[in-house]
């Protein structure tokens, strides 16, 4: 699913002669953190340029797709996976984690308890998903709701230190409400994912089968009542 390069030409044809015009990547990125820190809002802001103070239901939000024209040679399809309310009692399915290549861990700067839960989320993430080479996936820490008053006194240097010690690739102060730093944070994460990809390109498995509506529809027409 996510993670593989599906660009042309295929791995075999890339042997020198034809220079690939554009490379396409599909990246699955997880957005995790405590309930109410703004995960769904961040996804909606980033993908649909929307923010609603009142929107609270996670219902129906599964993953959102955003296509990035990264540079003249690279197209990135970003799948942002929402946690679908399962954070509340903390039992995520493997379906959620599998084949993710990057993650955001979000906390709410106006609620210190959500920062305290960050490490629990990071550890859970590292135990459930790794890159093919066995190292953790790049993870960016988001200090969300920076439009509001802080509930703690972590200085930027303390945050840097925290990220270093706990294996976060970096951190950003964001606001889904005022659209602060969200594009920047995503760019930063994608840069890291792409760097990983260059070092350890995923082998694309061409035999994988995806089932979809089109197959069914095409066939069921004939036998319809």
């Amino acid at each position, binding site marked *: 699913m996510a993670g593989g390069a599906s660009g042309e030409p295929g791995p075999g044809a890339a042997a020198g002669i034809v220079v690939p015009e554009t490379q396409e990547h599909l990246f699955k990125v997880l957005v995790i953190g405590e309930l109410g820190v703004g995960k769904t809002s961040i996804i909606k802001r980033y993908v649909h340029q929307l923010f609603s103070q009142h929107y609270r239901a996670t219902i129906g939000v599964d993953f959102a797709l955003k296509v990035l024209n990264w540079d003249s040679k690279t197209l990135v399809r970003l799948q942002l996976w929402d946690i679908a309310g*399962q954070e*509340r009692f903390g039992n995520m*399915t493997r*379906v959620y984690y599998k084949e993710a290549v990057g993650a955001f861990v979000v906390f709410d700067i106006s609620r210190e308890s959500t920062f305290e839960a960050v490490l629990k989320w990071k550890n859970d993430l590292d135990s459930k998903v790794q890159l093919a*080479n066995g190292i953790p996936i790049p993870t960016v820490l988001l200090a969300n709701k920076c439009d509001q008053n802080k509930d703690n006194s972590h200085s930027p240097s303390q945050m840097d230190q925290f990220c270093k010690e706990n294996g976060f690739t970096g951190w950003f102060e964001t606001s889904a409400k005022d659209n602060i730093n969200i594009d920047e944070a995503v760019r930063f994460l994608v840069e890291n994912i792409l760097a990983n990809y260059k070092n350890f390109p995923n082998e694309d498995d061409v035999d994988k089968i995806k089932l979809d*509506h089109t197959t069914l529809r095409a066939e069921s027409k004939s036998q319809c009542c």
Partner: protein
Amino acid sequence: MADKLPSEFDVVVIGTGLPESIIAAACSRSGQSVLHVDSRSYYGGNWASFSFSGLLSWIKEYQEENNGEEWTAWQELILETEEGVALRKKDQTIQHVEVICYASQDSDEHVEEVGAVQKNPGSVTSASTNDPPDSMVTACSDTSELTTPLSEPEAAREVPDVDVTLGNENHGGDTDCSQSPLEQEKAGNLPVGEDVVDAPKKNRITYSQIVKEGRRFNIDLTSKLLYSRGLLIDLLIKSNVSRYAEFKNVTRILGYQEGNVLQVPCSRADVFNSKKLTMVEKRMLMKFLTFCLDYEQQPDEYKAYEECTFSEYLKTQKLTPNLQHFVLHSIAMTSEESTSTLDGLRETQNFLRCLGRYGNTPFLFPLYGQGELPQCFCRMCAVFGGTYCLSHAVQCLVVDKESGKCKAIIDHFGQRISAKYFIVEDSYLTEKTCSNVTYRQISRAVLITDQSVLKADSDQQISILTVPPVEPGSEAVRVVELCSSTMTCMKGTYLVHLTCPSSKKTAREDLESVVQKLFTPYAEAELENEELKKPNLLWALYFNMRDSSDISRECYNDLPSNVYVCCGPDGFLGNKNAVKQTGMYSCSMSSFWNSALPCAYKPTSGTTSSPKPSLILIFLLKFSQNTLDPSDTLLRNVFSRVLDLNSLSSATEMLWLFPPYLFSQGQHNSLHNRCLIKNC
């Protein structure tokens, strides 16, 4: 995370196996609030799949005499007008768990391969300080004696730190294991460690490599495949749950004849390319298979044999014994003794119809294992607002004495959670409830091997092999061999699942003779050169699983009318049973149709057109939400037109096709409100 659960839901689902998860997703999707709990710490129940370390802790769980924590007495929590139906504390569905490790358990040979295999950037160095254990084989005759190497799952997970030297690695109970007074019959036949160390150089996979690469394994408790035109595939597609899963086509159908594993030709191209078949046989087979594709059109061909078994029928057809064998065991996959001609023809037809939809064989296998599928449905349920709690036990169902209906559950914290409908997986019911139920057993083996049972150009093969009964009266054994690109085992290994209905006492007794036919115990390989062609066994697990399928509802004692029982996995290859029963849930709602409704609403003869699916959908929703007013014209509308349950169940299928925004504003609002409450 430690929030208190809401105290009211529309539906409470207990157990996260495939059927329960399908129902949970269907309910959530159609706008009902769903609480989905499992007393275990993982999804899937007996449908689960595990990493290697996860499987080791699963094994451990079944040997520990653990009666669970003390529960607050629920008796005090129910009213005088209520009755409690206790649920089971400890699962009883798994028995006779035996583990045998054939791979070398010392860590000083060819460890460089570990790095190569996993492409680990850091090199793994060998300290080679450990003395090899005396015996490489640990065998256990029963669960209570099981002391095979069981590393702590956490410890095992931590291991792959790049600069850990293997010699220093903690292998949990390795040494205990070889010292413990275990059944040594196998060990006696095998060479001791030194022989293997001195053995010719070959990339041999050690036990510590398996542990180290344990995360690459996704080992299913239940081994099944999906028929490419089966109910489950259709359901996955219609419900859009398929977006969470990817599949691989099974690449080969294998047969076993006179001690050899052979590839069975089944598609037209296969038949014509086969070198094993003579020209005459090719024509015979094609003719017969073509007939099977629409056998109903030519009743004269089989009418006379309807009373016979399929194998007798095959003898009357122009097929050589060779071909009869393959059609019976590898294409129809039916039993020699008990399958009727019609059943055999139907199975053959099913097989042929499934061919070619996605590839050369009729079967699909989900990447990461069959255990992925229940989780896909759970994700769908969660996306539509379902609430999930694992490690959450339910003490009892609370039944209202007067109405006989279940009102609520009491969970392990003593919290009462009420709902309108309750779905309970069979294994949660107590002996008291199931005293009249007789269960069958499934025998299972899981093997890790180093080669395919039939080598081919590509080592990435997914094969299904049926081994006919060894002796009269015993059962055919279904073997599914998975390669590493199915994401169920580490590179350089194969994961082999064996399944058959139990006939002897333990799974090992049922299956070991087949295992011995197909594989060589690891250490024997170098000694018996003529046996070298067989793959080596590295590790084996045997266990029995209870088969709770096909139990009629009446067999359970005192089941309230709004409690539905889902069965665990059956022994069949496909998933028909799991999917079918989920339709029954909606059909059970319809027993209401026959009993509770005034005659005026019952179908009148002569009505022909069936109601619009959308109407039935709304009806079902209103019905399930108790917002159905008896004077509602909807009732008359739907009712006067539903002729049989079949059209109802096809209507419930429609539940999947209608996204919630089709509901009326009122319903939508209440749905929305519920979400608000939930997220507060």
